[in-house]
């Protein structure tokens, strides 16, 4: 039997990798993908906990996480397209209008 702790540890590592990717990549698409990475890490956590606590509610929550992640990805990418039309760049460090 794989101990629960290992699953949680895996989830944390993936989450950390997602945080690092989000905070340091210049390309906005990769930033979004890091967000998806973080969400997936959380899903791993939820489903493993649901398995070990024998309670299906973890999986219900993971279900909703997936649904909302899909919606968020759609809208986020729509925004990226709108932004790309205006600024012709996908590099976040060139979008500094709010500086000051």
């Amino acid at each position, binding site marked *: 039997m794989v101990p629960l702790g290992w699953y949680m540890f895996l989830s944390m590592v993936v989450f950390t990798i997602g*945080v690092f990717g989000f*905070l*340091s990549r210049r390309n906005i698409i990769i930033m979004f993908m890091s967000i998806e990475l973080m969400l997936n890490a959380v899903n791993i956590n939820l489903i493993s906990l649901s398995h070990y606590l024998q309670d299906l509610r973890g999986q219900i929550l993971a279900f909703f996480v997936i649904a909302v992640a899909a919606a968020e990805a759609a809208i986020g990418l729509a925004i990226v397209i709108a932004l790309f039309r205006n600024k012709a760049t996908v590099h*976040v*460090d060139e979008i500094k*209008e709010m500086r*000051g």
Partner: protein
Amino acid sequence: MKYYLLIPFLPLTAFIINILLGKEVLREKAHWPSILAVVGSFFITITSVLPQVTAGKIINEDLYTWIVSGTFNVTVGFLIDPLTAVMLVVVTTCASLIHIYAVGYMHGDTGYYRFFAYMSLFTFCMLMLVMANNFLQLYFGWEGVGLCSYFLIGYYFNKKSAADAGKKAFITCRFGDFGFGLGVFMIFLTFGTLYYADIFANVSSIAGKTVNFLGWNVDLPTLIALLLFAGAVGKSAQIPLHVWLPDAMEGPTPVSALIHAATMVTAGVFMVARCNPIFNLSEVAMNVVAIIGALTMFFAATIAVVQNDIKRIIAYSTCSHLGYMFLACGVGAYAAGIFHLYTHAFFKALLFLAAGSVIHAVHTNDIQEMGGLKKYMPITYAVFVIAGLSAGGFPGLSGFFSKDEIIWSAYASHSHVGKFVWILALAGAFFTPFYTFRLIFLTFHGKYRGGHHEEHHGGHGAHGEHHIHESPKVMTIPLMLLAVGAVAAGWVGIPPLLGGGAHFAEFLKPVVGHPEFHGTHAEEWGVMGLSTTLVMIGLGLSAFLYLRRTDLPEKIAEGFKPIYRILFNKYYIDELYHYTIINPTLWIANKVLVGITDAKIIEGIVNGVPGLIGKFSQQLRRVQTGLAQHYGIIMAAGAFFIIALVLLLR
């Protein structure tokens, strides 16, 4: 209803009415509230207060509790005893007559309502001062009359000299009032209360005590008395704070008559008389009072001899007579001082009002440009002569009795300085009629010297002189009433020597006590004779120099040129003050207070703090880089620190 409350509050009401409604509503009728109020106060005094006090009843009541703070109690209270009654008679009588006179004098002036408003306010403050039963109310009235004096001296505020004179009066008095304030503090510190009744009942408890004042051990009664006297020096224009009184003549003549002759300047004498239990405990203080009074009297008289401005001569005369009053108080004869205050109010107010009548007619203050006016202004001439005789101490008139009382007190008192001030008083007795009649002869006798006026008004046709006429009845009737007072007011105090009953001194005895004199009847006759002789000599010399040999004064002035110049320039005291006090103060104000504290320190803080905030926020805004990832890093850092903190605190 406590009728005596109406005495001060009627003029207060008149002030409020005039100041609020005077400019738009009342205009030329603004004199009605003031006159009705002050005449009302006069009637209440004569009909209600005076009979009660003569019957021996003393009123000491509190009206309204103002401050209650621990052991410090102050109320608005009224004390009516013989001394107050005398002052009330003086103030209300003179105020009524002068208000009526002012209707004619100030006719047509643009600030008419303002004048009467301030006169009413002044009357209110003076009455509160006189009727106070505690030191704080006295101080309130003291400051109030000083304030009204400033307003009224600077009445013609468009003239720079008038505005400056107002400031000079207030600031010079402030020096004295500072000492007076310290005196009131010392009284509270010593006695724990500010009420006359409590203080004077316990005054013997401080006899001989010493107190540590700025490192020296001084006698407590002396300290308190001298501090209180400092206020009197300022308010009553004694040396060295006399410099404001001549300049105060910039105000209208009714103001000079009321404030600077009859009432405000006498507040100092009143205060000394009121505080006589404290003064009696300190020989040093009384000697100081007597000497300052005597020196002022002599000093002011010598200056008055050579002045040419009609009002200034009378101002120095006031200064001199105030010196007489302080002289009397200083040797212990408070009743004599108050008696002189009472008679002086009449003849001095009369002198001023008559001078105002002259100025109204010839439109100049310089007596060198007058002359021969007696045929144009007979009434004014007559009352001027009566006032002059009374002021000089001519036998039979009121001034004679009061002055004589003082000279006899100076001679016969136990005071160590008694003989010295008596000599000076005799000198004063010589000079006073001399300069007063110099004024009368130069103004009314001889030939009219104001001829050059007509060169400016060439188109006056065949008139030889400027059209000079007697003043209207509204001005001459108060003059005549005051003349009656100048003659007869002193008859209540005729000394026993001459057959009178000395009613005045008897009246005041419960308040000021009776001084002990050692002197025989023969000495009294001798002193009286000596001073009367000096008065006659002064009168005669004045007549000789200014009626008969009118060329002599010029020659004497040429012959004694340095002395003449010193006297004419008032002993250069104004210049002295200017160099030693005023210039350094202005220098400090400009260089130090404006240059350093204002420009550098306060501006530094006021500009520096916003500057600092600006610089700080300039640095702080660099956190806003505009990059979402930087904000994300900060959020991650925050999350990290919070979880770490929770872990650490476990």
